C-alpha cells in the first residue's frame, strides 16, 4: 500500500498537497467563528451535485419547464427531496454569505494584504445572488415569472438598461429564450465563474493565512483535525436545517406561468424582499435612486472597506456600516412581511391595534392591502394545487403544456370567468363558511348568491319565506316584490301551525324534484336513493303547489311568465340561460339587468364564446375532473 501511495505521490504530489492543506497553522487555535467559509463551500458542492441531477430531468422551455419540474417534484423517486435540498441550500448559502461577510469584516480580515481576497469574496457573493435570481424563474411558475418580470423591468431604469433587459430575457418579450438564457446563466456561466473565483479565493486565503482576531488567546493549532471537526459539525448543522425545511415546508411549485393572468401575489424570495420593500419609499422620479443608486453605493462602500479599514476608526466605521446595513435589511424584510400578513397578524379588527404604529387610515389601508394579498395568495395556492392535480390525472399533461391544460380546466377557469363576468352582480359565497375555497370575492353584489345553485339546499332556501327576499335570493333584484316572493310568503309562510310540518316536508320534496332536473354530479347518489321523494315532489309541482301556473314543467304549464323548470339548473338549461336570459324559456319580459352573453343569430357579437359559457355552467354545477381517491374537494353543495 505504501509503495502504491509513494508511486502516486511521486507522479502527482497529491500527498504533499493534502498535507499542506490539512496541516495549515491556525494562529490562536481552531474556533467556531471560522466555519462559515467551509460551510459555504460544502453548500455550493451540494448545489452542484443536486443541480446536475436536476439538470438531467429539467427541460427549459415555456412548454416543458413547469412540466419537467412537476415531474421531478411529484413523480420522480426522491425528486421532492432532491429539489428541496437544492432549494433550501440556496437559501442557506445566502444566510451563510451574510455570516461569512460579517465575520470577515468584524475580524478585519479584509486588511492588507487581503484586499483582493475580500473583493473576490464580494464578487462571489454577487454571483451567488445572481444564481438565486436566475434559479427562481426556472420552474416557470407564476411566482417566479412575475418576480422575474419585476426584477428585469427594473433594469430599464439603468442607463442602457433597455438593451440589457433584452439581452437578459432573450428578446422584447418573455418566452422560450428567457428560460434558455436564465438556465445557461444559472447552470453554466455563473457556476463556472463561481468556481474560478472560488479557486482564487481559496488560493489567496492559503497564501495569506487565516486572520486571527486574538492569536495569543490559545496555542496555535493545525487545520486538521481541530478546525476540520468544527467545520464538519457546522456543515452537518446546515444540512440538518436544509433537510428539516425540506421535510417541514417542502419546495413549492406554483401554477404554470401565465402572462395574461391577474397574479396579485407576486413577491421575490425572502432574501430579496428588502429590495422590494425599499422601492416603495421612492416615488416617481426618485425611483432610480432606490433601484440603482443606493444599492450601487452600498456595494461601492463594501468594496472600498479595505482601503480605510487599515485604520482603527475606519475599521470601526466599516463594522458600524455593516451592522446598520444588516439591521436595515432585517427591518425592510420585516416590514414587507408585516405589510403582507398584517390582516393575519393583527386580526380582522378595523380599529387600530395597540402597539402598532399606524394611524386609523394607514391601519385600514394596510388591512385592505393585506387582505388582498392574502386572498391572492390563497387563489395562487388553489391554482397551484389544481395544476398539480390535473398533471397527475390519467390524462397527464398534454403536449401543448400545463398552461393550456389549466386554461381548459373548469374548476379554475370557470371560477375566473365567473369572477370576471358574473361577480359584477352575483355573489358566490358559501354562507356556512364550510366551503370557502370556492368563494368569489366581490364588493358590489346586486343579484342572487349562486353558491350551490339548483342544489336541494339552494331551492329549499328559495322556497323559504324568511329567505326568498333576502340578499341571498331576490332581495337585491327587481324580483324582490315579485310574484314568486309573494307566492312563497303567502302559500308557505302563512300556513296554520298544525300544517307547518307537512308543508315543510312538501317543500323538501319539491326542492328535491326541481333539483333533480339539474342532474348535479354531487347529488347523483342522493337522487338514486330518493327516487320516491323526487316523484312525490314532481306531483306536488303540478298539483298541490301549482308551480305550473307560472312555470313550464315538462308537458305542463306554458313558457313566458317565469323560468322553465324543465331541466332547471342542468348544463343545457344554464348554457341557454347565460347565453340569452330574455329567451322565452326564461325572462322574456321581466329580465332584470342580466346581459345576453351570446346570441346564436349574431355569433360575432358574443361576449363569451360557447366554450366559456359551458365552462361557467359546468363550474356552477361543480362538474369538473376529480382525482379518483376523492382527496380533493368534492365541489359538493350538500352539507
Amino acid at each position, binding site marked *: 500500500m505504501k509503495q502504491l501511495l509513494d508511486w502516486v505521490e511521486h507522479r502527482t504530489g497529491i500527498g504533499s498537497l493534502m498535507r499542506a492543506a490539512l496541516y495549515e497553522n491556525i494562529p490562536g487555535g481552531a474556533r467556531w467563528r471560522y466555519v462559515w467559509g467551509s460551510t459555504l463551500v460544502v453548500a455550493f458542492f451540494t448545489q452542484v451535485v443536486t443541480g446536475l441531477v436536476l439538470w438531467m430531468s429539467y427541460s427549459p422551455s415555456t412548454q416543458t419547464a413547469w412540466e419537467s419540474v412537476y415531474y421531478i417534484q411529484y413523480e420522480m423517486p426522491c425528486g421532492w427531496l432532491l429539489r428541496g435540498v437544492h432549494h433550501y441550500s440556496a437559501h442557506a448559502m445566502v444566510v451563510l454569505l451574510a455570516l461569512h461577510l460579517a465575520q470577515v469584516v468584524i475580524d478585519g480580515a479584509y486588511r492588507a494584504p487581503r484586499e483582493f481576497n475580500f473583493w473576490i469574496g464580494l464578487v462571489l457573493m454577487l454571483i451567488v445572488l445572481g444564481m438565486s435570481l436566475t434559479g427562481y424563474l426556472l420552474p416557470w411558475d407564476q411566482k417566479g415569472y412575475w418576480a422575474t418580470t419585476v426584477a428585469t423591468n427594473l433594469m430599464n431604469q439603468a442607463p442602457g438598461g433597455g438593451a440589457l433587459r433584452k439581452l437578459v430575457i432573450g428578446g422584447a418579450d418573455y418566452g422560450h429564450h428567457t428560460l434558455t438564457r436564465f438556465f445557461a446563466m444559472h447552470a453554466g456561466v455563473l457556476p463556472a465563474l463561481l468556481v474560478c473565483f472560488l479557486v482564487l479565493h481559496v488560493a489567496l486565503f492559503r497564501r495569506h493565512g487565516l486572520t486571527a482576531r486574538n492569536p495569543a488567546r490559545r496555542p496555535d493549532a493545525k487545520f486538521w483535525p481541530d478546525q476540520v471537526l468544527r467545520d464538519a459539525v457546522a456543515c452537518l448543522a446546515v444540512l440538518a436545517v436544509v433537510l428539516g425545511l425540506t421535510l417541514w415546508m417542502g419546495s413549492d411549485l406554483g401554477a404554470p406561468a401565465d402572462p395574461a393572468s391577474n397574479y396579485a401575489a407576486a413577491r421575490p424570495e425572502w432574501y430579496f424582499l428588502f429590495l422590494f420593500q425599499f422601492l416603495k419609499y421612492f416615488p416617481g422620479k426618485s*425611483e432610480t435612486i432606490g433601484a440603482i443608486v443606493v444599492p450601487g453605493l452600498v456595494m461601492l462602500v463594501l468594496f472600498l472597506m479595505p482601503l480605510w479599514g487599515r485604520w482603527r476608526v475606519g475599521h470601526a466605521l466599516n463594522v458600524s456600516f455593516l451592522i446598520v446595513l444588516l439591521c436595515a435589511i432585517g427591518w425592510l424584510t420585516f416590514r414587507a412581511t408585516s405589510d403582507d400578513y398584517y390582516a393575519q397578524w393583527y386580526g380582522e379588527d378595523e380599529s387600530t391595534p395597540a402597539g402598532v404604529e399606524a394611524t386609523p387610515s394607514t391601519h385600514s389601508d394596510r388591512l385592505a392591502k393585506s387582505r388582498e394579498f392574502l386572498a391572492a395568495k390563497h387563489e395562487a395556492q388553489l391554482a397551484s394545487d389544481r395544476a398539480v392535480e390535473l398533471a397527475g390525472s390519467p390524462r397527464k399533461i398534454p403536449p401543448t403544456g400545463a398552461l393550456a391544460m389549466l386554461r381548459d380546466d373548469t374548476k379554475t377557469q370557470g371560477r375566473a370567468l365567473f369572477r370576471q363576468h358574473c361577480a359584477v352582480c352575483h355573489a358566490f359565497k358559501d354562507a356556512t363558511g364550510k366551503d370557502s375555497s370556492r368563494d368569489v370575492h366581490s*364588493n*358590489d353584489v346586486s343579484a342572487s348568491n349562486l353558491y350551490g345553485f339548483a342544489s336541494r339546499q339552494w331551492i329549499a332556501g328559495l322556497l323559504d319565506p324568511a329567505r326568498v327576499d333576502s340578499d341571498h335570493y331576490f332581495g337585491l333584484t327587481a324580483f324582490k316584490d315579485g310574484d314568486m316572493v309573494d307566492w312563497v310568503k303567502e302559500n308557505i309562510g302563512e300556513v296554520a301551525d298544525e300544517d307547518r310540518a307537512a308543508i315543510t316536508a312538501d317543500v323538501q320534496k319539491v326542492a328535491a324534484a326541481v333539483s333533480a332536473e339539474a342532474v348535479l354530479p354531487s347529488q347523483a347518489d342522493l337522487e338514486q336513493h330518493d327516487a320516491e321523494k323526487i316523484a312525490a315532489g314532481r306531483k306536488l309541482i303540478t298539483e298541490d303547489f301549482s308551480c305550473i301556473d307560472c312555470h313550464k314543467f315538462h308537458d305542463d304549464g306554458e313558457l313566458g311568465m317565469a323560468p322553465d323548470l324543465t331541466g332547471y339548473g342542468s348544463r343545457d338549461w344554464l348554457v341557454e340561460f347565460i347565453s340569452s336570459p330574455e329567451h322565452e324559456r326564461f325572462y322574456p319580459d321581466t329580465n332584470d339587468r342580466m346581459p345576453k352573453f351570446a346570441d346564436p343569430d349574431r355569433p360575432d*357579437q358574443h*361576449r363569451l364564446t360557447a366554450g366559456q359559457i359551458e365552462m361557467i355552467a359546468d363550474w356552477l354545477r361543480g362538474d369538473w375532473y376529480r382525482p379518483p381517491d376523492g382527496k380533493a374537494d368534492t365541489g359538493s353543495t350538500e352539507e
Partner: protein
Amino acid sequence: MTDTQQPTADAQEAAKSRVGRRGFFGFFTFLVGAVVGLVPLTVAGIALFDPLRRKAAQKTYTRIVALDAVPDDGLPHRFDVVRERVDAWNRYPAEPVGAVYLVRKPGQKKPTAFTATCPHAGCFIGYTPGDDKFQCPCHTSAYHFDGTRIGGKVSVAPRGMDTLDVDVRPASTADAGGPQEVWVRFERFETGRHEKIALS
C-alpha cells in the same frame, strides 16, 4: 583581438537573427491565436447579442369585445387580449396574451383602453368590482379610473396607466348601422420611465 572580436560579432549576429526569428514567431503566434480566438468569440457574440435585433410583437389592432358588452357606466371592465403569437420556434394559435381595462363614460361611444401592465415594474394591475380605484398588487401604485396616479408625484409609479389606441368598428357580419365592436392596438411599453415609450 580579431580572433576574440570575430566570435562576438558572430554571436551578436546570431542573437539578432534569433530575435528576429523569435519576433516573427511571436507575431505569427499572436496572429494565429487571434484568429483562433476571435472566430468563436465573434460567432458567440453575434448569437449572444441576437436579442437586440428582435422586435416586439406586431402592434396590430385586435378585436376585444362587442361594444354592447362595455357598459357606459364609467367603471373598468377587464377583457383578455386574445391573438396569435410567435415565441421563437413556436406559433401559438389565438390565446390570451394580456389584458386591457375598458372604461366607457356615460354617453361616450368609444371606450378608453388601459393596458393592465403597471408602468412601475410591470405587474398586473388589479381591479375588484365595487372598488373605486385600480390597484397594483406589487408595490403601492394605485390609479383613478381615468388612469391617473393616485397620489400624483408621490406615487411610486412614474406615470399614469398606459392607454392603448382604440377603434370602434362595425362587426364584420353587420350591416351599416348594425352592431359594433371594440378593437385595440395592443402593445407593451417600457416600465419605470416617465415617458410612455413603446417596446421596440
